[in-house]
């Protein structure tokens, strides 16, 4: 029997506010335990939550970016359960009336095809603290720095049919939330994490199979492997005559397997009810249009503009816009310049990106900024240096502060375009290699590259390749 996989994702994106969702305490990562938790975060008696206006505009930004319904009167609700790192004994979340309703995104899959993934809802909630099990013997510590950190929980429809699609969707959302500046996307620090709802059904069956929810997947690789493992596990069970149990499972990256955490029967009754401490969250048209006005251009529109205005190929445009800082860098490089935008795109996705990866840097921290790169590309375009020499110049620029022109000047890298100088070098090479000349003239034209290489070497790479080729051919023919 053939099986179809059905996947829905719940993504928790930590909103990039400086203070918490319901208090003024800082959200900075990595502080000493319990130094960033105020009375409100600790849930001390008598304290009250007050909504951080920043999270509301971020949620609206997400809604606008996913063509989603914006709930004009959304409501916070309490999710009640006891856990030591949950200070109030309830989490403030949204249940019946989430701030963001139905929306969708169109995801590009690895084979370049596109698929629309629908989003059921996205709601605001506070994060819990952290239980620390490895600090004290036989005791558990609690760090409440994270308690009250704002999260946007983005719930997809069960629209994905493979781990590959799930990863493509997760990556798409990951890029999007960074693009619109609502989440730093740092998965190691837990700013972006996924829960996957996975089920299988016989191909062609309309009803969904019983699902398992895999919690807290904090890398795309784990997401993919957890789903693959889980799908195989469920199919094995079904094919061996067992059923799949509705339960919550954990992915163990070391063993590369998922295992049961709690079944449906053990699940909490969260006793959701509207939080009486927080009046309905009212959003008016004026607020929405303010958020809209401050929205950055979204990747899709930007990519289309790059194809249209700068004649990039769609593939190049998509690569450049996949990250907002990269797209900004690209636009800064080509601004007012004469070289083709394609040259800039190639350099940014090739040389620059390689260098950034090597040094583990973000593009904003690149040692070669857009203006410096721009000058380098201008020197390629106007024939001062070849592309190959440019790579050498780029390396020097990266490790210092000199401009491309300074380096070309200092190191004498200027391309040789003087015909007589090139001719002289060619003559020397021809004179020194009579047998190869004879072979070439006898029809072994492949030897051309040997001569090009030899002349190029003699010129220390600076001979203009076009001129070199032309003159060399002429001389070999006539000689």
């Amino acid at each position: 029997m053939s099986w179809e996989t059905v996947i829905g994702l719940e993504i928790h994106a930590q909103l990039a506010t400086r203070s918490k969702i319901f208090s003024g305490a800082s959200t900075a990562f990595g502080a000493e335990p319990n130094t960033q938790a105020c009375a409100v975060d600790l849930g001390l008696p008598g304290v009250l939550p007050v909504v951080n206006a920043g999270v509301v505009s971020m949620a609206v930004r997400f809604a606008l970016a996913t063509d989603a319904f914006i709930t004009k009167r959304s409501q916070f609700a309490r999710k009640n359960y006891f856990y030591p790192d949950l200070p109030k004994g309830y989490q403030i979340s949204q249940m019946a009336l989430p701030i963001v309703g139905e929306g969708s995104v169109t995801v590009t899959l690895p084979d370049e095809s596109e698929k629309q993934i629908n989003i059921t809802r996205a709601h605001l909630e506070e994060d819990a603290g952290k239980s620390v099990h490895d600090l004290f013997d036989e005791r558990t510590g609690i760090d409440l720095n994270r308690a009250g950190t704002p999260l946007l929980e983005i719930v997809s429809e069960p629209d994905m049919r493979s781990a590959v699609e799930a990863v493509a969707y997760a990556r798409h959302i990951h890029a999007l939330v960074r693009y619109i500046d609502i989440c730093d996307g740092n998965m190691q620090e837990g700013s972006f994490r996924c829960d996957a709802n996975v089920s299988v059904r016989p191909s062609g069956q309309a009803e969904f199979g019983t699902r398992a929810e895999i919690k807290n997947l904090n890398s795309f690789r784990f997401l993919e492997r957890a789903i693959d493992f889980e799908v195989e596990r469920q199919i094995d069970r079904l094919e061996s005559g067992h059923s799949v149990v509705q339960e919550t499972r954990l992915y163990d990256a070391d063993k590369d397997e998922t295992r049961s955490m709690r079944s449906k029967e053990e699940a909490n009754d969260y006793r959701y009810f509207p939080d009486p401490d927080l009046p309905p969250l009212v959003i008016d048209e004026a607020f929405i249009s303010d958020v809209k006005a401050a929205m950055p251009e979204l990747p899709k529109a930007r990519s289309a503009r790059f194809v249209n205005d700068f004649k990039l190929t769609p593939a190049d445009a998509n690569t450049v816009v996949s990250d907002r800082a990269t797209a900004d860098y690209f636009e800064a490089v080509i601004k007012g310049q004469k070289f083709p935008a394609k040259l800039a795109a190639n350099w940014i996705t090739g040389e620059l990106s390689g260098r950034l990866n090597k040094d583990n840097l973000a593009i904003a921290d690149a040692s070669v900024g857009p203006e410096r790169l721009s000058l380098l590309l201008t020197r390629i375009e106007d024939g001062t240096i070849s592309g190959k020499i440019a790579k050498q110049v780029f390396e020097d620029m990266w490790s210092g502060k000199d401009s491309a022109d300074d380096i070309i000047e200092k190191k004498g890298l200027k391309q040789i375009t003087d015909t007589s100088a090139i001719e002289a070098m060619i003559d020397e090479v021809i004179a020194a290699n009579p047998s190869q000349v004879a072979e070439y003239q006898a029809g072994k034209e492949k030897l051309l590259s040997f001569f090009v290489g030899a002349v190029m070497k003699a010129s220390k790479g600076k001979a203009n390749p076009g001129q070199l080729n032309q003159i060399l051919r002429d001389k070999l023919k006539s000689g």
Partner: protein
Amino acid sequence: MLANGDCSSTELTEHYLERIARLDKDLNTMISVNSDDAISGARACDERRAAGENSPLLGVPMVHKDIFCVDGGKTTCGSRMLETFHAPYSATVVNKLNGAGMVMLGKANMDEFAMGSSNENSYFGAVKNPWQRDCVPGGSSGGSAALVAARLAPVATGTDTGGSIRQPAAFCGLTGIKPTYGRVSRYGMIAFASSLDQAGPLAVTAEDCAMVLQAMAGSDERDSTCSNQPVPDYSKSLGDSIDGLKIGVPEEYFSDGLDDGVASAVRSALAEYEKLGAKLVSVSLPNQGLCIPAYYVVAPAEASSNLSRFDGVRFGYRCDNPADLEDLYTRSRGEGFGAEVKRRIMIGTYALSAGYYDAYYLKAQQVRRLISDDFDKAFADVDVVAGPTTPTPAFKTGAKTDDPVAMYLNDLYTVSANLCGLPAISMPCGEVDGLPVGLQLTGQHFDEARLLHAAHRYQQVTDWHQRMPAGLE
């Protein structure tokens, strides 16, 4: 007295502290007394007055119900759970009254977590009614009411979730006002039922209540449910005529459960209002009978969630030697909370459970809407609605402790104001067998000024509010 220099704040404070020291051993109205801080606070007020400051509350002693967090002292909420709890912040109400120059003598006894109508649910012992010591003072602000009645302070703060200011005010012969929901900040006031809780003053006269409420009321950026509506001057027109005031009298308030003596005291008070030029209009509140059931779903439901933070993990009572996490929770809460609190947590948890939510919590919220609609209709014709504050005067200590439902029926006339967020005031209007009787006026949202005005006019022509319990010289 302070303003014209008849006495200093220090003398006044010493006077009340002396009375507390002498009389409160028996009455048990206070959980903590801060003599030293009070005296030094009073001295500072005297200096401010000497320097020319002349605000009406400057140097006036008062007591806070022990539900308001006060930075630097204990805040117990009448519970073993918080027996040793020190809040690192003060409630907005506390800050505001401090700012107005009031001198805090200490913290008043109360029913545990404000759950009760008799003050018998305090971990720190029952409070006696100064009028008859074998009677309860009412609750949950029973300590606040009893201490003002015994003249241990001129004014005290209370909180009112279903009648907890007005019912003890009625039982102890005082004036007490529960403001409109959102009029006074709830920040730093330990929550019982967040959609119903409001703070207000208890004092001898409506005039005193007006001055203290003036200082308590107003917006607070730390409480999202607190209103930004400007606070009017409550004292300004207290003495104006009430000629033409339309008082609605719901027949539902004079039904079976009402004590005859209370009924006739209330009827006489209404007759007094007619003499003052008010017009009595018969109104109907057809859903009055649903108030108690709706209240006893909504309030426990919210309480069950609000009290989840008392888990023995971060603050408050923690059981000895917990075996594991489950044991820590079970015993800390089992040992830290009293019986009534546990009962309400269980009722509330049940009402919010999957499968019961629609039938209980949601239904109760719908009933709340119906009750509100009744009041809206009545207020189309009248300015205030009048009736008894409680069905009976104060009852004997222990009389209802075994019958929670009988106890809950004390709130028969008071819970509707909380369910609808309306302001309501109780004032003394008679006596039955030597025990005070309260008259309740309920007003429209943010119409506290009219309630205080009406109460003050009544108090200008009657002396019920000036009567004092005997034997407290």
